[in-house]
């Protein structure tokens, strides 16, 4: 299970990663990207243009399947249940955000332990740092976009502060890393 968290500059970064992944890429990926409230965006179709691996919005109590890339819906926190299904919550904003990257990373780390992989990309706040630490503490793999390459480096730098040992990779190297999983 891979969780990718990003904010400002995220769409561009995600497109580069998605362009580089193999067509038969088969590990479930959950993307948590901050978006504007009440703005209908077509995130799935924008990202789908960059890969043939199916991209869909994560649905309430949907079972997570291999070979899918899921996007957290706007305005809800996205959690992962012990049976590997999604559940949504509308509780308070965390780090001024809903969905919050921390929340999804923490629940992935509890359920998937050492099989969880957390990746933090460009963004302008600290969301994701705590969650990445939780992935690390549960034995999972942590990756951060090279801060010097990130459009906005706050989020990668905060993540590295929380998990200094995280692998620092360029977007292209992240695609490579995913292909080799």
């Amino acid at each position, binding site marked *: 299970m891979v969780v990718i968290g990003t904010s400002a500059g995220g769409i561009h970064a995600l497109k580069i990663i998605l362009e580089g992944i193999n067509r038969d890429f088969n590990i479930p990926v959950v993307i948590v990207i901050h978006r504007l409230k*009440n703005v209908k965006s077509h995130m799935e179709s924008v990202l789908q243009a960059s890969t043939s691996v199916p991209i869909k919005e994560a*649905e*309430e*109590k949907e079972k997570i399947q291999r070979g899918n890339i899921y996007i957290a*819906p706007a305005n*809800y926190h996205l*959690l*992962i*249940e*012990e049976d590997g299904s999604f*559940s*949504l*919550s*509308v*509780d*308070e904003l*965390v*780090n001024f955000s809903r969905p*919050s990257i*921390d*929340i999804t990373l*923490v*629940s992935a780390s*509890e*359920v998937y332990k050492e099989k969880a992989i957390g990746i933090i990309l460009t963004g302008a*706040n*600290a*969301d994701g*740092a*705590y*969650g990445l630490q939780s992935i690390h503490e549960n034995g999972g793999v942590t990756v951060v976009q090279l801060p010097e390459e990130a459009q906005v480096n706050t989020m990668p730098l905060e993540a590295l502060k929380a998990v200094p040992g995280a692998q620092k990779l360029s977007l292209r190297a992240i695609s490579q890393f995913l292909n080799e999983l």
Partner: protein
Amino acid sequence: MALSQSSLEKHYISISQKEVMLDFLDQEYQLSLKEYSEASVRRRITKMLNEFGLDRVEKLCEFLQSRSDGKQLFIEKFTVNVTEMFRDPHFYKALEDKVISVLKSRENIRIWAAGCSSGEEILSLCILLYEMDLLHKCHILGTDLNSKMLDEANNRTYKTRHVSTYMKPYLYAGGRYGLEKYFTTHGENAIFHAFLHENVSFKEHNLMEPLGEEPGFDLIVCRNVLIYFKSTLQNRVIAYLDKALRAGGFLGLGSKESIIFYHGKNHFKEIDLESKIYQKI
């Protein structure tokens, strides 16, 4: 920048600790949360441990036991009560166009808002009905598991800084005037006018049990409550809602909720896909 709320959490509950807690709640308070979504249960209990400065669920159990209002306190801290007026404005627009316009010819209209939290949703409904000149013939029942929220709902008093964020959604929902028309400001509070609640009543109720009111509701609104339940419980709760509706009555759910887990889903037809509004056949 404020520290994330979660980064302050020192004490964490594991999956097995969660079971200990659930057994306690079941035995002590006959409160069965086994069919609540687990990830959210762990999040809420973790939050509680940290708030009370306790490091293990066993201590939380002792703490609750030591208090006469333990059950109440637990429910207050456990439930997620975040709500807004005119949440998803398109929902209210669809209600007006596709539901209320159908119900308006009836002599009286019975509405149940299940899981109404602090009442913002009910006030939104009342304003919509008032503007359609129907409020006087409606009876609206608001229920929630958390009775403290019902007290808040009854007071019709909210923070002005929150209310100001509802102005736009009100207009998107099809509001005909300005939201200011409906409240007076006292310091940092906005108090909504009493006439809006003239035909509103509140009652504490657990959705895991039947309502125990006369069935035959014309409209039931149950939004952003089912997401906290596993699909088995969603199924049971929707069955109770189904029973409480009259034939031809309407059911409105949260935008990410649906009746797909309900074994009787073919008792319903979909009225508005985006707004999750169904009609009982």
